């Protein structure tokens, strides 16, 4: 009986991992969130990490809620916004309960413009908010709202994206997997670093923008925005990862992790065979380098954001060997970066033959975190990311370990769901 169960899990995990390694993500459109996020209703706000009550939210999330109310015109000022939020008129939900990702604070409402990625192998769609140019985290990532940010959001919707949409309508979409695969061989791990991916993306997109029959100024404004925005490709990597993981969502008997994210209070994971359920533990602090010596852990907010969907798809912390440059920012050597990926191999279901890495002597990257292997080895997944200041803004970059408590509660729930009487 036990062997039957183990065989069922093995088969399910093989199927789930194939969603990650055989994925075929394409950037196909840019649309308002209300038109591409399933289940995102009017008067609803999404946020990063596992679900959390308004009163328990950290300041960044509460500020983001108010910003969303002002952005959508649901309240005229902060006081009215808080009153309406406390009245329960506004639905609040986790972004990862939908086909999207809440990077940073992950504040999303129906009018935010989103990049839409179609996974043609997994038959899934995922939407992620674009990098907010000069405001970087801006409204969605940092939960900030001001007249200047409002103007930038309008600019993105009305001027920046129309030329891009025209390119996508003409060419039928832009394939993202070749960019991810090549950038991983060029020093990116595609969480903290997208230097190569940005260049590969620009090389593909820019000639097509120049070929449009539009005024030169309109095209140049779009080009300038793209090339001057650091890590512009990050949102595409997240969307590709999310779409792949959604393909595995609901595969019975699978113990593969499909989502990871924090809300500054708790960190949560989701598991393929237990769709829609969260397994949480206190959010971890990051270790790494601060941007200034004035900062210490006392300034740091525990993990907030869902960008570690890229780790669920086998990049970021699992791909440390691909990016010794990112690891060196934390004082790690090349051999330590390689050791980090080798350690992650012990908790993953398979390898991704599309992502073979020079520093691993062209071995492929590990892929598909298995909750059982995490518990068996005591090795928790390493996730890369940016450190948030408690009062907002980025104060550094580094890594954290996903809390073991998430895996313990997931394993217990799995047993309750699947144990054969």
């Amino acid at each position: 009986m036990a062997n039957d169960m183990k065989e069922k899990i093995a088969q399910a995990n093989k199927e789930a991992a194939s969603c990650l390694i055989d994925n075929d993500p394409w950037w196909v459109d840019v649309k308002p969130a209300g038109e591409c996020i399933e289940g995102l209703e009017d008067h609803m706000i999404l946020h990063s990490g596992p679900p959390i009550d308004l009163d328990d939210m950290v300041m960044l999330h509460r500020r983001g809620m108010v910003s969303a109310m002002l952005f959508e015109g649901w309240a005229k000022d902060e006081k009215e916004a808080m009153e309406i939020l406390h009245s329960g008129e506004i639905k609040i939900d986790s972004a990862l309960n939908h086909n999207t990702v809440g990077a940073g604070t992950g504040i999303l409402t129906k009018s935010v413009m989103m990049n839409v990625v179609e996974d043609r192998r997994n038959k899934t769609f995922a939407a992620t908010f674009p990098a907010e140019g000069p405001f970087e985290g801006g409204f969605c990532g940092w939960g900030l709202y001001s007249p200047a940010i409002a103007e930038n959001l309008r600019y993105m919707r009305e001027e920046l994206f129309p030329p891009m949409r025209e390119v996508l309508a003409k060419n039928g979409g832009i394939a993202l997997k070749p960019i991810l695969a090549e950038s991983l061989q060029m020093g990116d791990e595609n969480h903290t670093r997208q230097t190569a991916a940005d260049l590969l993306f620009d090389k593909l997109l820019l000639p097509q923008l120049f070929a449009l029959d539009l005024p030169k100024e309109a095209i140049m404004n779009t080009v300038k925005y793209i090339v001057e925005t650091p890590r512009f490709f990050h949102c595409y990597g997240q969307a590709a990862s999310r779409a792949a993981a959604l393909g595995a969502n609901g595969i019975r008997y699978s113990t593969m992790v499909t989502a990871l994210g924090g809300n500054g209070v708790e960190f949560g994971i989701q598991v393929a065979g237990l769709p829609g359920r969260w397994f949480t533990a206190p959010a971890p602090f990051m270790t790494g380098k601060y941007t200034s010596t004035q900062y210490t852990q006392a300034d740091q907010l525990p993990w907030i954001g869902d960008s570690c969907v890229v780790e669920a798809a086998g990049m970021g912390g699992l791909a440390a060997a691909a990016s010794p440059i990112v690891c060196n920012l934390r004082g790690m050597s090349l051999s330590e970066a390689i050791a980090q990926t080798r350690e992650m191999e012990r908790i993953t279901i398979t390898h991704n033959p599309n992502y073979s890495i020079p520093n691993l002597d062209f071995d492929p990257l590990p892929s598909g975190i298995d909750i059982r292997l995490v518990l068996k080895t005591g090795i928790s997944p390493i996730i890369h990311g940016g450190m948030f200041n408690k009062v907002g803004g980025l104060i550094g970059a580094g890594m954290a370990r996903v809390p073991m408590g998430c895996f313990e509660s997931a394993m217990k729930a799995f047993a309750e769901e699947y144990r054969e009487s």
Partner: protein
Amino acid sequence: MSAVNMEKPIPKEKPSVANLGIKLFYDSMIAQNTRCVQIEWVPPIKQSAEVEELLNEFL
């Protein structure tokens, strides 16, 4: 602390060391210009009895 075993004199040749686990010892060997390889190793994890039982059943 045990006494030094005089029957086994300190080798004249420089040793070659394989260090298991704590990297501080590896760094110390390298600092002394001694050949050393680092082997990543941690003691096997001890889980709770409940988790052990679940792993036996499902892994």
